[in-house]
């Protein structure tokens, strides 16, 4: 699994962090998404997919 994010699109809802805190974080200054792990391990795959589903800005892309 490979994860990419679009910080321009991000609206800082924080839902990716709530879904997968080991993979996503937020910038201190404006809450915009920061990617912690571009290749998350298999055990986090479901959480990462959940993050992509609930992102309101469609700012998370996943390639398998």
């Amino acid at each position, binding site marked *: 699994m490979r994860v990419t994010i679009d910080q321009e699109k991000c*609206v*800082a*809802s*924080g*839902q990716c*962090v*709530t*879904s997968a*805190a080991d993979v996503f974080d*937020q910038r*201190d*200054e*404006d*809450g*915009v998404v920061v990617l912690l792990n571009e290749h998350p391990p298999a055990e986090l795959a479901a959480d990462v997919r*959940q993050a992509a*589903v*609930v992102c*309101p*800005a*469609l700012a998370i892309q996943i390639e398998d």
Partner: protein
Amino acid sequence: MTSTPTGPEPAEIPEYPMTRAAGCPFDPPPDLLAEQRKGPLTKVRLWDGSTPWLVTRYADQRTVLADRRVSSDVERPGYPSPAPIQPGGSKIGFILMDDPEHARLRRMVTAPFAVKRIEAMRSAVQKIVDGLIDDMLAGPKPVDLVESFALPVPSLVICDLLGVPYSDHDFFQDNSKTIIRRTATPEQRMTASKNLTGYLDRLVDEKLDRPAEDLLSGLTERIKAGELTRQDAAQMGVLLLIAGHETTANMIALGTLALLEHPDQLALLRDTDDPKLVASAVEELLRYLHITHNGRRRAVLEDIEVAGQTIRAGEGLIVPNDIGNRDPGAFEEPDQLDIRRDARHHVAFGFGVHQCLGQTLARMELQVVYSTLYRRIPTLKRATDLDQIPFKHDGSVYGVYELPVTW
């Protein structure tokens, strides 16, 4: 042979908003659910005779709300306004603006709502909740849960976050109520809005001189840097103050009533110490109750396709997320309240760039409340019949005006 009609006859177009059924206070209006069964895209008639499209299904609702070719700007042609537009008075903060200006302003206030910052507030919120429950238990009963608990919790929290003195709560709660009451006249709404903007403007002025560790003080830095006008700062303050207490307060009171009417669900929540089940209950109650029942409203800027049909630039869209959250295509047995289901993909906070800024705060407050109130008062019950409880049918945010409880 006559030509095929392209849409319903004007007389067949139902009026919007619609009325909930008597005895079903937690369900969307039956006529609205009927529109969803009719098809993905129907038409409704508004107070001004206009006939915007109604986007009835969950998947289409998400697609439309995430589409940059639809606008939240009330002054765009076709925007389905819920009430007459007041010239110059309608753009409260950035919720009725489009990008890039919307994004520029929103990003000025997103930092305090980040997940880690909100988590750091959890123990303070727990103390507030416990203190209010102590007071209720020590006082007379029955008691109005709205006045004694549901409204103070989020009001205290948002005041602290913004830097607004809680001692002014009567003033800002009264004016907020007027702004979100559907039946308020445009003049009443305008006066309430001016009252709040003037109040926030004076607070911003004080914080320009004496900044503290709060959100409004943070905005004064932007004013000093020339990135924000004082008027915009005051309007953002009004928006966050209203959104910060009215919505969560309604979820606390209406959520409690819904749980009291579903004792099996209440028992599950009361008897658990699993934070995951508590979080799941919050998502399910957000989905099931969906308190923002006015429909998200948008104007179409360029021709777009929705559910196989072209919608023209200049047409209006109403996106009733309350029935999106009851769409059987997205949730199994959607009319059942089931706190163990995975409801995290609900659209109670909307979708797209305007999705609720304070959702992480709301979730945390509701998790603390739902995991504490019923555990500490296990015999909590209604002190009046369900049909005696006044529901906010006339509010743009749904809930109960009063909830008399005893134990």
